[in-house]
């Protein structure tokens, strides 16, 4: 084996919390990266994968500092360098592709100026030459109109393009090591494929080494040579991609892989089969935002949506960003009054406007949002959060309410003493459970779940899905489950609606989705889901015109 490009030896990184407490977030991590090798850092949020990746550039975020160990990059001890020398490394020896290119591009400067900035900072080449090199990179990254795309501003290109442009930005200085920090996490699945392909091809051509940070094993499987599994700032397991996928040694790795196992959904059968009325029926629903002129809003989102959801069954709504799936949930919940069409809840017509719905109607349908962080009032204790709907809908007070709060916590498998905490003191999964418990407190018949597992780590998300299923059995609930992730939907739903640009393009039973979907867009969506197979991306054949037609780029 040749001399490794990067050697990390017993790296320790400390952080100071807001309360002034010192904690160690990276606890003695050691690994090597050979030249030209792509190593993936895998782990859930808080595992320290991004912190490690950034430390390879000699950089730690505010409040963090390297407290021990060495990082050797091409025979230079990065940890021992002055800030000025470290700056000299960045962009030339090691460069960075950020998680969200949309945020990492300066909104007020042209793309080209930002892409070639590294050459200006390090005085690598004349401007004209740098621009020519950038255009070559744009071409290599399969960007449309490579000659002129650099003259635009960041907001004028799509997310997928921006992500590829950020790769160009990282590659312009000819680095030996490129760090990819979850570069596709924020993208839609169909877009993700193109970006992954582009990355893979430029990395192969340039023979550069890479560090690929991700929480998604399936994505990593497509691009990495080796995988390092992290948890709590420590390495759990290291191995080649093949090895990790097929013969995981560590239990945590197995747990990660298990979350990918498809769980066939067993339909819940309500006892009283005789109920004829569907719990939810949506007829010719139209909704949108903006100033209303002639009874129609300026920006129309939902166009003529029809479906019905039988009691005790679950409906999945899938689609990519901008498809209108969240708008649909909001329209049903009354947060965004539709301007046309009708909604029937349990056979009763719901008025568009919240204020004109009865308390009983509001109680029956509850909505749960994606981000538990923002969905729970940070100033209220858990007891207050759960107690309010109890008091509001059911008039519960005092001891009765407290007892019920305990019951609810138990229902979502949380300890009762959690009720005295504030949301900020809980973990992400706990918060999402509270979020769910609050909906349950209303004793609803229908829960609208808006991407409730998307922000969670795979293992935690799987647990939440299990909980949902259990609750359904116990409480005869119906779910309307909104997600961009087909596998999640398949795991819990009986029926699936595929949405595109505000319209329902296909409605199918979930079980037959993969096999029988007819609409080209549905097929594209299904085929774009990464598989736990190292050869999947290479073998994937997609109709490029189809991609161009539907992909959100």
């Amino acid at each position: 084996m040749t001399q490794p490009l990067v050697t990390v030896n017993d790296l320790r990184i400390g952080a100071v919390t807001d309360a002034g407490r010192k904690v160690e977030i990276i606890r003695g991590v050691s690994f090597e990266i050979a030249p030209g090798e792509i190593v993936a850092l895998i782990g859930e949020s808080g595992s320290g994968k991004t912190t490690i990746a950034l430390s390879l550039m000699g950089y730690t975020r505010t409040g963090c500092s390297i407290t021990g160990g060495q990082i050797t990059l091409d025979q230079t001890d990065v940890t021992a360098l002055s800030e000025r020398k470290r700056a000299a490394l960045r962009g030339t020896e090691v460069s960075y592709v950020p998680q969200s290119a949309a945020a990492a591009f300066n909104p007020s400067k042209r793309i080209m100026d930002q892409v070639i900035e590294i050459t200006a900072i390090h005085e690598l080449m004349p401007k004209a030459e740098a621009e020519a090199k950038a255009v070559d990179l744009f071409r290599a990254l399969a960007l449309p109109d490579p000659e002129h795309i650099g003259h635009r501003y960041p907001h004028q290109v799509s997310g997928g393009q921006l992500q590829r442009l950020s790769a160009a930005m990282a590659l312009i200085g000819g680095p030996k090591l490129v760090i990819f920090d979850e570069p596709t996490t924020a993208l839609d699945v169909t877009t993700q494929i193109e970006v992954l392909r582009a990355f893979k091809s430029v990395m192969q051509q340039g023979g550069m080494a890479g560090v690929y940070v991700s929480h998604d094993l399936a994505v990593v499987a497509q691009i990495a040579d080796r995988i390092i599994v992290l948890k709590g700032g420590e390495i759990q397991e290291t191995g080649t991609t093949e090895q990790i996928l097929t013969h995981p040694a560590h239990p945590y790795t197995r747990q990660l892989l298990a979350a990918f196992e498809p769980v066939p959904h067993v339909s819940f059968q309500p006892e009283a089969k005789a109920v004829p009325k569907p719990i939810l029926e949506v007829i010719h629903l139209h909704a949108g935002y903006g100033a209303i002129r002639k009874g129609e809003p300026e920006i129309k989102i939902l166009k003529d949506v029809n479906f019905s959801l039988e009691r005790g069954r679950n409906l999945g709504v899938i689609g990519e960003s901008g498809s209108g799936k969240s708008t649909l949930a909001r329209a049903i919940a009354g947060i965004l009054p539709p301007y046309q069409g009708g909604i029937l809840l349990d056979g009763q017509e719901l008025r568009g406007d919240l204020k004109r719905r009865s308390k009983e109607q509001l109680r029956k349908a509850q909505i749960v949002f994606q981000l538990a962080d923002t969905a729970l009032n940070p100033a209220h204790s858990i007891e207050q959060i759960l107690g309010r709907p109890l008091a509001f809908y059911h008039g519960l007070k005092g001891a009765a309410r407290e007892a019920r709060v305990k019951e609810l916590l138990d229902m979502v498998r949380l300890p009762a003493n959690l009720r005295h905490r504030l949301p900020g003191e809980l973990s992400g999964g706990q918060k999402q459970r509270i979020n769910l418990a609050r909906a349950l407190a209303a004793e609803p018949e229908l829960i609208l779940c808006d991407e409730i597992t998307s922000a969670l780590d795979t293992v935690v998300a799987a647990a939440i899905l299990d909980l949902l299923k259990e609750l359904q059995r116990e409480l005869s609930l119906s779910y309307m489950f909104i997600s961009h992730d087909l596998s999640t939907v398949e795991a819990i739903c009986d029926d699936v609606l595929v949405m595109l640009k505000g319209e329902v393009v296909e409605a199918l039973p979930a079980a037959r989705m993969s096999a029988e979907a007819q609409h080209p867009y549905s097929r594209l969506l299904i085929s774009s889901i990464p598989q736990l197979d190292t050869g999947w991306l290479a073998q994937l054949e997609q109709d490029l015109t189809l991609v161009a037609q539907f992909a959100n780029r």
Partner: protein
Amino acid sequence: MPKSLLPWILVSQRLGIALLTLVIVSFAVFFATELLPGDVAEILLGQAATPEAVAGLRTAMGLDEPAMHRFVGWLVGLAGGDMGTSYVNKMAVSDLMGGRLVNSLRLAAVTTLVSVPIALALGIGAAMWKGSMFDRVVSVATISVISVPEFMVATLAVLIFAVWLGWLPALAYGANVDSWGAMLRAYAMPVITLSFVVSAQMIRMTRAAVIETINTPYVEMALLKGASRRRMVLGHALPNALGPIANAVALSLSYLVGGVIIVETIFNYPGVAKLMVDAVATRDLPLIQSCAMIFCVSYLSLITLADLIAILSNPRLRR
């Protein structure tokens, strides 16, 4: 609608709102003044105000007409560019105000030229080297400056520079500001005083705005490209902090037209603020109105200008 029109629609919207605001303010000011005890006739006669004399003068000045009537008359005149005639000395308000408005604007302009670059430099510098000695010195200095009453600063400045050192004249306004040097000397003290007053807030806001943008991913990205601290701040953070900075600067500068009454008094500088104080004291309605309009217009135009800068510095709104 075509996208290129967007900024113009935003601008014309702002202007329309500004115009409406002006009318509201003039109405409020007019009737607030009407409510004040005593009218111009009583005030003019002062100690000689016997009831008969007041009644006579009132009739002679046309103050018997209903208030609404006079207000509408004034408004109509204003629309035609006529600001009316002072009750007190029968001069056209525009003549009375012309010279003093120029004075006020000149003082404001000089102060702006001095204070804005200094304030921005200090604010940006403090943000750039956040937590450094420089940052601490700047923040302690700005805190001290906002903590001292304006008249104290002005009086101290006069004592030190005019009385003890004799470097600068104690009065800002003299007939002979014929040379640049003389003008510089004459303006030095009011400008120093006012700069003290307006800079502190600008420095604080600039620092906050820049620090906020420094914490964005794209500035972190610049750092990860190997950019120097200077490049990160000036090249990446600053252009995106322009909107809030412009807003803070506008708010501070709006003080320079109407809020400088103390400086005008201590340096005997004939500007519009003192004019309005006089006008209120003599209940000279047309003059009060016109001054209020001037203040309002300057405030609104500064705010609108700041909005415009925010729009123009943001490519998303610009195109």
